[in-house]
């Protein structure tokens, strides 16, 4: 890429890919933006035309929106806490030399390969169902009343399922970070009189800081849009107890057949995602500076 000629050439060669990507991105976004300002309800097809801010006021003004926003933040935050803390512990355990390490690691990673709706179904029917779920049986074994997880603790149940899926990802990234710590540094800390807890706090944790940041950033991006797990298990209910912004858009646009309001909700979700990303980058992004 040294000369002007190769630079021009490289630009021409890259142009088709860049243009396709741009269209791919821009067209749906512009269409959503367009619909969000239109009266476009499948139940009332006669009513068309420009709606102004009505769709936005309708979505944001609804009490379910505030609840969904709070639910989204709790969902993201809860899963992040469980996966980062749990992932760190699992990584520390898996880093110990033990028999069958290779197989154990594959087993630990495997939940990540299970598709979200499948994982949700496994949890819904296999574990959390009060009648025939494993947890129900466990409760009954101890003579307790089985918990109807999706009715009594809907959001918590969704958090558990999503955390189960993302724990392997966090574990894997954190394990590689752990393994890149030089053995001599650990030994030096040991010679310096640091016990296991101090070694973890002063040596291992700072070493892993960057990887933890990456785990948080990547997971947040995906967790803001959690949908399948909610759709399969609680359906956003009871009421709006487990509805996040993504699911609210689905409820408004598809279940209520109001494409205009759904699009407005979608645009709001885009803004929220960007706001979260902005604050997140400010909060943890400094760890990424080499």
């Amino acid at each position, binding site marked *: 890429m040294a000369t002007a000629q190769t630079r021009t050439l490289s630009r021409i060669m890259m142009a088709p890919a860049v243009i396709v990507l741009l269209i791919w991105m821009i067209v749906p976004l512009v269409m959503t933006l367009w619909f969000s300002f239109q009266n476009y309800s499948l139940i009332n097809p006669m009513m068309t035309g420009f709606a102004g801010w009505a769709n936005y006021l309708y979505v944001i003004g609804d009490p379910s929106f505030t609840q969904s926003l709070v639910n989204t933040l709790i969902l993201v935050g809860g899963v992040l806490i469980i996966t980062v803390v749990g992932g760190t512990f699992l990584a520390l355990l898996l880093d110990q030399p033990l028999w069958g390490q290779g197989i154990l690691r594959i087993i630990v990673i495997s939940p990540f390969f299970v598709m979200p709706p499948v994982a949700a179904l496994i949890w819904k029917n296999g574990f959390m169902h009060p009648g025939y779920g494993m947890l129900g049986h466990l409760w009954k074994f101890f003579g307790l009343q089985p918990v109807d997880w999706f009715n009594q603790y809907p959001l918590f149940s969704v958090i558990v399922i999503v955390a189960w899926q993302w724990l392997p990802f966090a574990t894997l990234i954190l394990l590689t970070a752990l393994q890149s710590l*030089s053995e001599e*540094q650990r030994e030096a800390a040991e010679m310096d009189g640091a*016990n296991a807890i101090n070694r973890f706090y002063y040596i291992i944790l700072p070493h892993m*800081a960057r990887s933890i940041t990456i785990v948080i950033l990547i997971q947040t991006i995906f967790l803001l849009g959690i949908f399948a797990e909610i759709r399969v298990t609680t359906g956003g209910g009871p009421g709006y107890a487990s509805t996040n912004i993504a699911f609210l858009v689905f409820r408004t646009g598809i279940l209520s057949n109001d494409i205009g309001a759904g699009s407005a909700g979608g645009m709001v979700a885009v803004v929220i995602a960007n706001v979260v990303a902005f604050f997140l980058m400010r909060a943890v992004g400094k760890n990424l500076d080499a």
Partner: protein
Amino acid sequence: MGSISLRNVKKSFGDVQIIPDISLDIKEGEFVVFVGPSGCGKSTLLRLIAGLEDTSSGTILLDGEDMTKAPPARRGLAMVFQSYALYPHMTVRDNIAFPLKMAKASKEEIDRKVEYAARTLNLSSYLDRRPRALSGGQRQRVAIGRAIVREPKAFLFDEPLSNLDAALRVNMRLEITELHQQLKTTMIYVTHDQVEAMTMADRIVVLNAGNVEQFGSPLDLYKKPANRFVAGFIGSPKMNFVDGPEAAKHNAHSIGVRPEHFLLSRENIPGTWKGTVGVAEQLGSDTFLHVHVDGLGLMTIRTDGDQTFSHGDDVYLTPDATRIYRFDAAGLAI
């Protein structure tokens, strides 16, 4: 404070025996160098003393106290690693202060000791930098600083200079030797470089395949090597060995002559070795001649820098009769 004794220490990893059986007594305040070819177990021996590896059997005494099973921190030893093992996310100050912080020393004590160490090692102006921003020699000094502040019974150095360039290595060699004279603390220093061993040590332990070949002062090892291995390992360039009838003339299985113990001449003197000069390595002060001696093989001869031999010249060698080392069939000195 600072005597170290090993009693019948053995170490094996699985079926592989690294150290068959070693007993050593290191006196208080001594600078002892473990030297040997790579894989001879010198680093393992150091790690056993440090407590970073468990002994398979035997006893390690520090100041007469049995520390064989004690964890590294309780042994009161400080170690400088080959890679320095500085903590990259801490400043130089925090690096040096870390052992004190772990020992729960007071803030004033930490400041005082860190300042002292920094002044001793010329690090005062770098205290707020991260290790990344330091040169190799400076990192080395930070690692030593981190060792000093603990006021350990003994310092352990694991090939600390092998990552430095040649000029810096000579400097740091001097600095560590000076530090030893200043602190008078016991030091154990592991290296594969016999020049470092000769120049720094009070006493040298020559190791080979996990066995102590000889333990003595540098000049002892040079003048009275216990066996053929030590004779070949200590001294640079290496000693020349001759087997067969030539050795039998001296009633030995093999004889050794150091490169500096030859007389050279261009005239044929009866009883001398005749050879042809191969390569002449000129160092200015000295010249190393690699001579192909008829019937005896390649020999290295050290001569002064003004000699006039060059490739292909015939040369006659007379070994200094008083400085011929004789070895028996088992390689032991006679």
